[in-house]
């Protein structure tokens, strides 16, 4: 075997030629001609168009009641709170109750999502609701709406945008998420399909965020600690 040389060798420097030289070297390594006549072109295009699923684990294909129980149990194991709410109209009261139980002020920040904005916030008299991105230091509690969730690991899926700014998910100490039970599926692949249905084919938000618990680290002595850089608490309100 010969030494690989690129690291020690001379490059022509960054610039437009680098791309073609790298791809040419890949083709040389694969011993393929390249160009439109390459039979691999059709194979690759088909794979991207088909988006064929591989195996789904059994834990992702349970009956829906079991999926919901499993979803909650994995989130709770991951140190999140899970609160069942009968309908969307009950969310403000459920949030107020949670915040009081945590000894937190009844103030929260959320994006301009009509599904959250139009909730009956006036049912909680002392609640202050601000719209927009999270402001550091002042916004300690935020609220987001999940576009999907996967029960195979207790994972929420959030899509960034004006309705749910990404800073809401990472800046506060306490992050609240509303999930409608109809958006809870078993596998990641099913969650991806829900995102495609909501946003469009091959369309992604600036960030699609899988969240499976509050922020954590084990970088000091291997000992798990919650609240490394992101939220210290995560509470999920499952609706319906």
């Amino acid at each position, binding site marked *: 075997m010969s030494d690989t040389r690129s690291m020690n060798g001379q490059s022509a420097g960054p610039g437009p030629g680098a791309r073609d030289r790298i791809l040419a070297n890949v083709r040389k390594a694969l011993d393929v001609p390249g160009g439109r006549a390459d039979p*691999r072109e059709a194979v690759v295009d088909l794979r991207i168009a088909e988006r064929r699923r591989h195996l789904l684990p059994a834990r992702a294909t349970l009956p829906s009641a079991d999926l919901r129980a499993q979803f909650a149990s994995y989130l709770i194991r991951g140190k999140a709170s899970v609160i069942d709410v009968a309908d969307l109209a009950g969310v403000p009261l459920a949030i107020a109750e949670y915040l009081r139980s945590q000894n937190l002020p009844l103030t929260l920040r959320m994006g301009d999502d009509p599904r959250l904005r139009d909730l009956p916030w006036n049912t909680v008299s002392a609640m202050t609701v601000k719209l927009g991105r999270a402001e550091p230091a002042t916004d300690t509690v935020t609220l987001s709406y999940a576009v999907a969730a996967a029960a195979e690991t207790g994972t929420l899926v959030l899509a960034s945008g004006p309705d749910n700014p990404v800073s809401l998910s990472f800046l506060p100490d306490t992050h609240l998420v509303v999930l409608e039970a109809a958006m809870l599926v078993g596998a*990641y692949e099913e969650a991806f399909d829900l995102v495609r249905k909501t946003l469009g084919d091959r369309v992604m938000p600036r960030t699609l965020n899988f969240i499976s618990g509050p922020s954590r680290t084990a970088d000091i002595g291997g000992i798990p600690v919650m609240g490394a850089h992101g939220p210290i608490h995560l509470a999920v309100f499952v609706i319906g």
Partner: protein
Amino acid sequence: MAACGTLKRMKPTAADFKANARVALDDPQLQRALSGLPTGLVAQRTAAKAALPEFEAFRNIGRDVKNHMLANLDLYLERYEAQATANGAVVHWAETASDACEIIAKICRDVDAKLVTKGKSMVSEEIGLNDHLEAEGLRVVETDLGEYLVQIRKEHPSHIIVPALHLTEQQVEAEFREKHTHLPKDRPLPDPASMVAEARAIMRQNYIDADVGITGANFLIAETGSTVIVTNEGNGDLTQSLARVHIVITSIEKVVATLEDVAPLLRLLARSATGQDISNYVTFSTGPKRAADPDGPEQYHVVILDNGRSDMLGSEVRDVLRCIRCGACMNHCPVYGAIGGHAYGWVYPGPIGAVLTPAQLGVKSGRHLPGASTFCGSCASVCPVKIPLPDLMRKWREAEFRQGHQTFLAKAGLRTWAGLAKRPWAYHLAARFAALTLGALGRGRGGFRSLPFAGGWTKHRDLPAPQGRTFQQLWAEQQKGLAPDV
């Protein structure tokens, strides 16, 4: 060496492996830090694997998915680039480490950056990015807690997913007291939680003040033009979402076709790495912030590095490009467990490093690493994408022999061995002679505390004395039915 910058931190010392290993074995702090591996990451992986009955099936899928991507790497890179660009990304290509550093430095200059925050990225370690940017007058802050610890100690990571694995809780406390001089000297730091809180408070302002946020990528997705990061702390998300500019530094072998191809790899990655079912945060980033978005970066750059990988693709070690950087091979390696990561002397330690380092630094500099193996096979048996790591190490050993980098003694020993092994009659004779003489000499105590030419063995354990007959003799007798119980 083409890694850029002044190389204060990442001067390769792989050629000094033997000396490094000796120092590591005699370092009591390191030995204490390493002692947690079997009950920590190893046990956690075992439990996570047991909780997913399809784990073995997913290993085969993971191997096949990555093999397909590598066989069509040029085409998937082209499609990734087209889709990412259509979504507003600026894609850059870097043949070497210094090219990648220069591309990133230029982006920073163009936006007049002063402060750069950085999420965990092994590719950024590989190219020596921090040193390069600091030489340009930028302040670079590592935001992953482990990387931050390593940065303030002016070290480099000793593990690819747990950068400060070599440090004990007590060392971190001492480090914080020494470096965080703006805080009261006698403040209580009784446990990791209090130290994490201290680091969290310090890092907050950096995220907000940063001009540029740099992250790595675990995967690139051709279908959507996205980059994917996987973290537990959320630092990578604050890094990329609060800065004006997000730069992703990644490498060519990270591309996969679709979200469906990423799903099985995600199921393997966290379970193999930390024994979690999934890492806390998996983030798919696509383009800069949209017009109506109230937050997110205004610019989104992706720097795709080759740095020897396209050469590896056409070599005997091609399979190593399947690696998804979980660290399971080092967690399970008896050599890594004894000496830690720094002794390997280059960015990637453990079995994966023993295969990558000779490819990146050359056979001569990296020659000790493929030899630093018991060939027990644990690494291959836990690898989520079934890389035959011992086989690949053997390829490097053969290359080392062919290129004549071994010592005179090793060469002479191998030649003698080969001479005997090719002549069974001579081998049997030599074995019988050794068994008889050693057996006779050691009969009294049953073993030897020291032997000429075998000091390396007898320094740490006795050599048992042979019990009389050789294996070949026993085997021949058993075949004749004389000794059925052997």
